[in-house]
Every structure is written in C-alpha cells, then in structure tokens.
C-alpha cells in the first residue's frame, strides 16, 4: 500500500512541476492510486469531470511519468471513488444547539443498494482460535472472489459472529473491487421477495435482480427450511451464479446436512465449496472480544471484572455485548469505575443461572435415552448394556456439573471413587475415536441443559 502511495506522490511532484498551479489543484487534488495490479495502475478520481479530463488530456503525460518511475507499468485506468475515507473522519463533529428534536434516524445507516452494514469490517472482528479457520477462509474468498471456496458456508450458534464475518467479506470485496456488485440478503427477505414477485406476477424481475450480482451473501439460510418453492428458486439461482464463477456466501446455525426439510440437491450444493464451523468462543477469545468492545465504548475494565463476565457468560457474544452495555450505562451515571461487587450485582440477572439437576434426573434422562430401567444404573450388575450408560452418567456428572469423584461414587450406589475416575477416563478416551458416542453425548447434553 505504502509503495503505491509513494509512487503517486512522486508522480504528482513531477506533474506539479509541469502544470500550472490552477490546473494542478483542480485536476490532481484528491487523486490516489487505488491499486496496482500486474502492470495496470488503477487511479481513483473524485468525479466524472476529472475522469473525462484526465483520460482525454493528460493520459499520455501521466503514463509517461509513471513509467519513468516504475518501468513495469503498462496501462492506466480511472475509477471514480469517494475521496480518501480517512479524510472524512477528520470532519469536525458539530455540537447541535438547536432546541428542535431530531428525527430518530441514527443507527439506521445501511447501504440500500447492497444491504451491507458498514460497521461490520474485518478490522472490528476479533480473531481467536475459535474462528481463525473461518477467518482464513473468508480472507481467501476476499482475495479471489468466486474462484476458491465457492460457495462458502459458515455455520455456528447464534451470537458467534457469523453475520459480522460475512458482512465483513462483502464490505471488503466492495472496497477492493469497486466494480463488483455485492448484495447481502437475509433468507427471510429473499423468501419474502420471492413471494412478492409471485404475487405481482414478476418472477422474471426477481430472477434478474438476483442474477446480476457478482457476490451474493445470504444470511440464516436455515429459515428456508420447508419453503419448497423458494428453495427451488434458490437452487436455480445458485446454479446460475455458481456457473458464472460468482461468489456465494451462506450462513446458517447448523451444518447443511442437519437443516431439516432442506432439499438434498441444495444440501449437496452447499457442501460443494467450503463448510466452516464457528464454535463458541473460548475463554481467552471471549476476554479479547470483551476488551475490544469495551475499548470501543471507551471504558476500562479491571482484569477481575473481565474474568468474571467472561466466565459467567460463556456462549453468546451478543450477551457479552449486553452485559457491557449495562456496565457502560452505569459507568456513565456514576462516573467512576465499577467494582467487581457492583458488576456482579448488575449481571445477576443477565448471566444465565446454572441449571441445577439432581443426580437422579441425570440418571433418568440417560436411562431413558438408552431405553433401560432407571434402577439398573444404581445396581451392582456388570452387564455391558448397563455399564456404558452408567459410565456416561458419571462422566456427565463430573464434566458438566463438577461433582467430586467420591460423592459421585456414593450417589451411584456406593461405588469407590477410583471406579468413577476410571469410568470418566474411559468415556473420554473413547470419545476421541468413537464419533457415535460423541453424538450421543452431545444429544444428552442438550437434553440435560
């Protein structure tokens, strides 16, 4: 980047020597090199007047100077782009003194053309071990839209940053390739659009509208489940876009194979590119996310406060944000840093209470799951079909509820704590290579929680 900036600075210096100040200020102010790509220089100009003028009057002159400075330059293209985005931020923020109320328009700034929200960028995304794969895939897509990982399918639980990531891809592509038409749409909006077009008898308009995009981003695809006709339309749209090497990006809360009532031909197409999972962020990533968000809000958080929030809100980044907003609000009212006690008090309700389940209930759920009598779990029998569920109960009690080994042993019909340790280790070891067991335990966990 610095390289092209320097090149243009030198070029401008030479141009300035050879033109009148009036001409220079009028035509060359606010120009910059957008990018340099295998011998072609893309010059950003503020408006069509300048584009016309430079390309008709100064083209050869500029190109000659550029070649003199860097011999590999072959051609020069002009694109109209807004002036340097950094400059815009320097504008003074006006303090309004008018007694008139304002229309509640703020926070609604979404580009109508592509539906992208400019606040979602890669710069504001916290990358941690949990999402680095998804991030890397996104970067690859941004570098070569449509060529690698097409479609890109990102799935994960709510509040892990799927929307942020896919919108950031859109915004980045828009910046790097101004000529590409990016469009972001939620699947719900897509379905509504389709229904609307059917009602108005304008299905062709609908088809045309979506087929003209170079990058199509579709959020929350799981909502299309059991909408047959919309799925069919998506299928055709997909084929069309994919065949013309245009990028498609999907997000969902589930792996495509687990979206119910989704046509198989769509599922298989989703799987054709790259499927990435964003799991829930780990402790350190949550802390990093919290710190970056706190910094944006302009508040400082003590280490212990961060630790507390991060350990009490474990799954959802959106809830982290909510907690932070509550803290920031109190911070403003009291105008001092909050102590750990105050934060605890504040988040009493927002952090999810740990569900308390009796040992008996866990045993019941597990025995129900494996279709056996609840009592046999506690009995001394060593039948194979009983041992496995019993071990799973112990494992769950230890891992998810943190009960001590001796007390688990006691509750499970007076067994020794070494038996319990052995059971837990065994299940853990088997989970490593037995994917069926993993699935079963996942299902049990959702039933328990």
């Amino acid at each position, binding site marked *: 980047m610095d390289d092209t900036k320097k090149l243009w600075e030198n070029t401008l210096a030479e141009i300035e020597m050879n033109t009148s100040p009036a001409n220079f200020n009028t035509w060359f102010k606010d120009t910059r090199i957008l990018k340099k790509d295998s011998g072609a220089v893309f010059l950003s100009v503020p408006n069509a007047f300048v584009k016309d003028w430079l390309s008709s009057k100064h083209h050869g002159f500029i190109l000659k100077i550029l070649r003199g400075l860097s011999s590999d330059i072959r051609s020069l293209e002009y694109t109209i782009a807004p002036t340097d985005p950094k400059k815009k931020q320097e504008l003074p923020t006006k303090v309004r003194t*008018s007694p008139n109320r304002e229309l*509640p328009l703020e926070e609604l*700034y979404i580009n109508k053309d592509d539906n992208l929200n400019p606040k979602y960028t890669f710069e504001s995304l916290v990358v941690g071990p949990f999402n680095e794969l998804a991030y890397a895939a996104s970067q690859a897509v941004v570098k070569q839209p449509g060529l690698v990982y097409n479609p890109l399918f990102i799935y994960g639980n709510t509040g892990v940053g799927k929307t942020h990531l896919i919108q950031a891809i859109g915004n980045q592509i828009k910046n790097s390739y101004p000529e590409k038409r990016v469009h972001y749409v939620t699947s719900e909006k897509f379905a509504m659009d389709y229904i609307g077009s059917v009602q108005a008898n304008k299905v062709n308009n609908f088809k045309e509208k979506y087929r003209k995009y170079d990058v199509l981003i579709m959020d929350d695809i799981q909502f299309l489940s059991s909408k047959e006709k919309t799925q069919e339309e998506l299928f055709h749209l997909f084929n069309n876009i994919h065949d013309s090497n245009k990028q498609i990006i999907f997000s969902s809360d589930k792996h495509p194979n687990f979206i119910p009532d989704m046509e198989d031909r769509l599922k298989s197409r989703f799987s054709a590119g790259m499927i990435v999972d964003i799991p829930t962020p780990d402790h350190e990533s949550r802390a990093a996310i919290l710190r970056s968000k706190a910094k944006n809000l302009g508040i400082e958080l003590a280490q212990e406060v961060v630790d507390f929030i991060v350990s009490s809100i474990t799954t959802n980044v959106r809830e982290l944000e909510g907690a932070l907003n509550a803290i920031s609000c109190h911070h403003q009212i009291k105008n001092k840093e909050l102590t750990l006690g105050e934060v605890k008090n504040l988040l009493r309700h927002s952090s999810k209470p740990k569900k308390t389940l009796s040992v008996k209930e866990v045993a019941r759920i597990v025995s129900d799951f494996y279709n056996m009598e609840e009592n046999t779990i506690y009995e001394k029998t060593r039948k194979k079909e009983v041992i496995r569920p019993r071990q799973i109960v112990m494992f769950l009690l230890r891992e998810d509820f943190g009960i001590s080994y001796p007390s688990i042993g006691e509750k499970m019909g007076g067994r020794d704590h070494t038996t319990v340790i052995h059971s837990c280790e065994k299940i853990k070891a088997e989970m490593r290579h037995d994917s069926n067991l993993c699935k079963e335990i996942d299902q049990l966990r959702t039933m328990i929680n």
Partner: protein
Amino acid sequence: MKFECIKDKLLDAITKAGKIATNRNPGLPVLSCFLLENKNNRLIIKATNLDIGIRLEVPVKTETPGVVAVPGEVLINLIGNLPETKNIKFEGSNGEVKLTTNKNFATIKTKDPNDFPSIPETKSEPFNMPASDFVNGLKAVWYSSTQSSIKPELSSVFIYSDSEDLVFAATDSFRLAEKRIKLKQSKDFGNVLLPYKNALEITRILDGEGGDVSVFIDKNQISLSSGGTYITSRLVDSTFPDYKQIIPKEFETEAVVLRQDLASSLKLANVMSDKFNQINLVIYPVKKVFEMKTKNTELGENIYSIDAALSGKDIDISFNLKYVSDCLNSLTADSVSVSLNDVSKPMVIRGVGDKSFLYLVMPMNR
C-alpha cells in the same frame, strides 16, 4: 470563428446556464466562462463548475465555425443590457471576441478554450418522464435538506424508484419531505443522492420546460436531457438513512384544516414568533379547540383559533414555525391533515386525498 444569432434566444440560454458559469473559481478561471462552440448553424453553449455541467443549443447562422471561452458574467450583463436589438454578430480572434449590433460594438477578452473541461456523458439506458414531473418532485422536497456539508447524504435529495413510482426525499434530521411521482414506464435504477444545490439548479433550468426529459443514471452521475438541453450532475456516494421506519403508521390526534387557513394562520403567528421560531399548537378535540400560539417576550403574544375537524386525544405541542410553513407550497390539495402522536413524536402533514406528498416535522423540546 464568426456567427450571427437572435439576441433573445441567446440571452435565454445563457441566463439558464448563467449561475453555473458566473461562480468565480479562483482555481481554474476558465470555469467562470461559457464555452461557445459554433458549427453547422448551431451554437453549443457549455458551462460547468465541475459539480454540475450544462450544455445548451441555440440556432445561429454560422459563417466560420470555431470555439471561444467567454467570461460568463460579462457576457450576460452585456447582452442583457443591450436595448432594442434583434441580432448580434460574433467574431472571435486572438484572445478576444467582438460583438456587433446595430448600435453597439463590444470587445470581450476570452480565455483559452482548450482549458475548458468536457461535460461527461452518462452511459446508461435512459427513462423518460415529463420534465415538469421531475421538477415538481425536486421542488417538493429539496428545501428539507441541510446546507451543512458535514453529512453529504443529508445535503442531498434522495431519488429512488419504488415499483411504479419515482420517489424524491430529503431530510435535515429535523424534518423530512417525501414526494412520489407516478412513472409511465417503470425503471429500476436503485437509488441516487443528488446534491441539493444541483437539484435547485436543475429545477431552475428545467422549470417551464414542456415535453419529456430523458433521465440517465449511472453510479456516479445523473444526466437529464430535454430538447437541446443537457444537464449532468455528480452524485453523492453515501447512504441515505432508512427513513421509512420512522414514518408513524397510526396517530392519536388528527386535525383536518383548509390549506389556505393554515397558511394564513402561520403568517399571522410569525409576527410574534421568538428567536427560536417557536409555535405552540393546542388541539383539544372534545372541546373543539385548535389554537396556534406564538409568544415573544419583547413584542407580545398572539393566539389564533383555526377552524378544523378534530379527532383523537388532547395534545399541546411546540414546533419550529419555519419548518411547518416550508411544506405549504408542496401541498396541492385544498384540505390538509395534521396528524400527531405524542409530544416527542413527529407530526405528519399530508394533503387530504393526496398520497403523493408526505411531510414529517419533529417537535421542539420544552
């Protein structure tokens, strides 16, 4: 170069383009000139300030073709003040142009025409609509945009196509105006932001134009072509706020008044308005009261009762008088409905039976 033309036709054209060319531009002096291109019995007049550009045509009698750049202000003042003249002869040579009429002989110093920028063409499929419709759309809303340049999207007129309508909207965040114009041929071009200054210029140039105007829109530029006139303007690259969400759908209080009554009462109220232009509306539907109060600590106060059909809840609310009266010219219906919700919610003004225009004003803080 040498040609002869009819004074009134030339004057008419250069007056239209005049405002664009008479802006003094210290950077590039040639921008305060008209570029006069004379060939094949046509005179093409061009003017631009690099924000908006215009090209006009006048029929002339060409003797020798050629191009000159004549300072705009001088040319307008000179031709505008020529008495009882029908024809003017132009003859350009060596950095000056000679104007000869039956009684007057003038020489104007010219600038190098090669410095004059070209007027960009917009490459897109155009759509046609009556010029008067386009002008009316802009006129109905442009005053609601802000003159401050901090938020370029708010100092612009937002134009977009919505199925069969062409919609114009503008807001300065205190009030908002929206005008819908039915299009005969619908065209989906997304949406554009036209700087309000250029919008004003376009209404001035196209006002009174009969016929149709062809509208060309691309990513950076909007162009209008009507008869021999071609106007092109830069577009603002920004995002207009999604204003539809703030338009209230239901109202608690409603008053229907004659537009003429509203206009005259606002004029009356203006006499006693204070420095904030505060005007107080009191609507008590049950007691059948609709009063407009203004109070100025130095001058005195005024209370005016308006005849109106009232319904809904009682309300006592204040507005900036200027914001309310701004919309009156855009209302075409004889009766006007004034709808309110709460002392902190916007007031909506529409013509009764006229769905095409909508105006939103925020109340003042107490």
